[in-house]
């Protein structure tokens, strides 16, 4: 099991974390450590690559040059060139938009689906809770990647399919966490108090339950983006994602795999970027998580 595969402990399963109590406690600034700083720096660069890639790379990621194929990294081509003579550095920079967009969108889809299911289970009747919970258990019986593969197999390859597929694959995990969180918040004293004060159910849900139950999703979402990027890259690697010549990182990995014996940089560099991005989002997510815990514990 890799670091990225390591289970993330849902906030609602942590005994020292009273759900819904995150808005109490004093703020305390602490040195975040080298890891989160580096992660933040790396992600900041990626954000620049997403918003304005031309600031980091001046070339065109799609320009082919048959006279410059498979050149190793050099001063002229920082990350070398690929089998079409395209500059790998430029493609990695421009690929950030594609890969991160897929990661963010897939996480959003997963969270949205998870919220719908989780809220329905947590706030609905016992009957709904039972149905949704059993449904989630069935979904959990399938490996998440298999769910994603099934979706792509049914609806075809492509970026949109990829986003939805990864979103569906991650949704059951989010749904279960959200359900637990909602149930925990639902039974807290301040919600009980609101109920006693005669507040409407709608007001209780939107003013008290949702804001407090959803707050941990910031952490989950951050952690999830990294995971989604890895999954999306995996599906693209299998030829089920972005179509060539899009500079999507997973697709770059896939296109380069047959050249690994003559051009190691085609695999190593996109692979390293995917790993670093996932590590960075995970490190940042963990940092935020610790921050929340810290605030709560003081």
């Amino acid at each position, binding site marked *: 099991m890799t670091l990225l595969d390591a289970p993330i402990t849902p906030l609602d399963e942590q005994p020292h974390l009273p759900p819904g109590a995150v808005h109490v406690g004093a703020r305390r600034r602490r040195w975040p450590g080298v890891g989160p700083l580096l992660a933040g720096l790396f992600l900041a660069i990626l954000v620049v690559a997403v918003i304005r890639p031309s600031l980091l790379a001046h070339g065109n990621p799609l320009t082919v040059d048959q006279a410059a194929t498979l050149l190793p990294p050099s001063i002229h081509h920082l990350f070398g060139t690929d*089998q*079409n003579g395209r500059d790998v550095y430029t493609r990695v920079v421009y690929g950030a938009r594609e890969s991160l967009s897929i990661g963010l969108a897939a996480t959003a889809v997963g969270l949205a689906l998870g919220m719908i299911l989780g809220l329905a289970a947590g706030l609905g009747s016992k009957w709904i809770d039972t149905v949704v919970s059993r449904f989630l258990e069935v979904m959990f019986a399938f490996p998440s990647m298999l769910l994603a593969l099934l979706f792509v197999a049914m609806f075809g390859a492509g970026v949109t399919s990829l986003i939805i597929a990864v979103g569906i694959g991650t949704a059951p995990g989010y749904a279960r966490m959200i359900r637990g969180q909602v149930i925990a918040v639902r039974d807290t004293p301040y919600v009980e108090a609101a109920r006693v004060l005669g507040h409407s159910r709608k007001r209780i849900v939107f003013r008290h339950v949702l804001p407090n139950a959803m707050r941990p999703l910031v952490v989950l979402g951050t952690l999830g983006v990294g995971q989604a990027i890895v999954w999306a890259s995996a599906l693209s690697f299998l030829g089920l994602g972005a179509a060539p*010549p899009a500079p999507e990182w997973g697709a770059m990995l896939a296109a380069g795999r*047959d050249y690994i014996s*003559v051009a190691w940089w085609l695999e190593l560099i996109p692979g390293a970027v995917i790993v670093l991005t996932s590590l960075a989002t995970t490190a940042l997510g963990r940092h935020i998580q610790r921050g929340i815990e810290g605030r709560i514990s003081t």
Partner: protein
Amino acid sequence: MKHKRSLLALLAAAVASGLVLAACGSSAASPPGGSTLTSSSKPVRGGTLVYLEDREESCLDPQIGGDIPQAMIAAQYTDNLVYEGPDGKIEPWLAKSWTISPNGRVYTFTLRDNVRFTDGTPLNAAAVQANIERVVNPKTDSSTDGGYIAPFYQSSKVLSPYVLQVTLKTPDSSFLDVMAQSYIGIESPKGFARGISANCDDPIGSGPFEIKSYVPNQEIVLVRNPHYNSPPPGSPHTGPAYLKEIIWKIVPDASVRWAALQDGEANVIYYPPAEDWASAAASHITIFTHERPGSPNSIILNAAASPFTSLDVRQAFLYASNEKASLKSAYFGTYPYVGSPLVPGTPDYDSAFQNAYSYDPAKAEQLLEEAGWTGHNSHGYRTNKLGQVLSVSIPYDSDPGYTPSEDLTLYEDIQAAEEKVGFDVTLDPLSSTAYDDLWSNGKYQTLAGGYWITNTPDVLRTLFSTQALKYYGTNASHSSDPQLDTLLAEGLAEQNPTIRQKLYDEAQAIVSKEAWILNLYPAEERLAIASNTHGVSADYAVGLPDFYSTWIS
């Protein structure tokens, strides 16, 4: 169950032995028809050969559908009625002699009388008749064999247990060539009487090996036919095969096949990655190639779909593609460029069209202007007066067994070249099922990866005739030209080689001018062979792997 695009129709006598390659030492192709085994290399009997193929057989029986992998496996377990020799001449095999009536319509074959199928039944005139009548029966869905023979087949008659007379409706100068292809390797009628499905999994022939087991999309195990006595002419040896067993595995990824060969997990692999050829010698691996005749690997343009309904646009696409340089780059110079409708080596090939569409972006732009694509949108792509963008989709099968990485590199280069003159080209990876559906429903602008392997110029009728468009489903460019139809019909019926060449020259001129396909490179038999594996060969006509005289040291 057919893969129309890989269309093949391999011809030529399957198993035969031509171009034998001894992989010992520095290994080089042998003289045609002869063994290259040196005096110090004494063949060893026994042993298991592991062969890695790039894609699965939809059915092990080549008469059903008719795709390259089917013919490859059929070449191991069937013999053919006739054999195509190194000079392209048709020679005896199961038929020890034959006569052709003066009008070219009646063929009388006299068969060998000592050959049996591996199920013990005799291979006689009735068996051959059953095979022919099977492939011409529409219910068999024998698109390759049936496509060749059915239009001309009239009847057949068993004159005696080992004499068969076949009568054609009209003369067919390609009939014997077709009968030399492994696509119509002769099978046991008792075997196919079990039904198509049962025979697909366990077909029975009279070849040097027989099917022992088959796990679809994983592996086929073949064992030696201990009674084999019918090798084709020029075989390095007679009697049963040297190998005891062949394990035939399906490994779509070329780099995985290559790694397996390097690691000693395989003896022979199909289609080694071009980028690794340079390191083959250092690994004591021999690369063996043999050009296959027919039509080259190509991108087919659909003349029935916009924008390729316009001849100017089709020609512009070909002038703009720069495929010659792209091919050299993508395949590391391992493939020759073929710009003509027929691959060199195909009978009646005309070299005049080899460079008909040399890279000329200016000419492409001029043609597009003339065709009305005069505007440009904000991305630089051409538009017409209606504001439509000159968009072209190139679908391809994303299975690396169908579209190896080199092909994808080639397509991406072509895409970039087309964009320079204003085509907005997208590459669309599809699953094999989706690709086949697209081929069938005709709703495409182009199709990447089309080629057809056969040893006759009649491939032009298969690919471009109105007849093929209406009845066979093999005319993917939806071309229809009455003059071409006439030339192809006359060429097929013509017995005089000089006149036939002239007819096919004219036909090739029309196909080239009409720009229905962007020609790329010839289909080739490409094998990589481990240093301990000797005597691997391929038939002269289409280069199907032949393991009859193969042995392992």
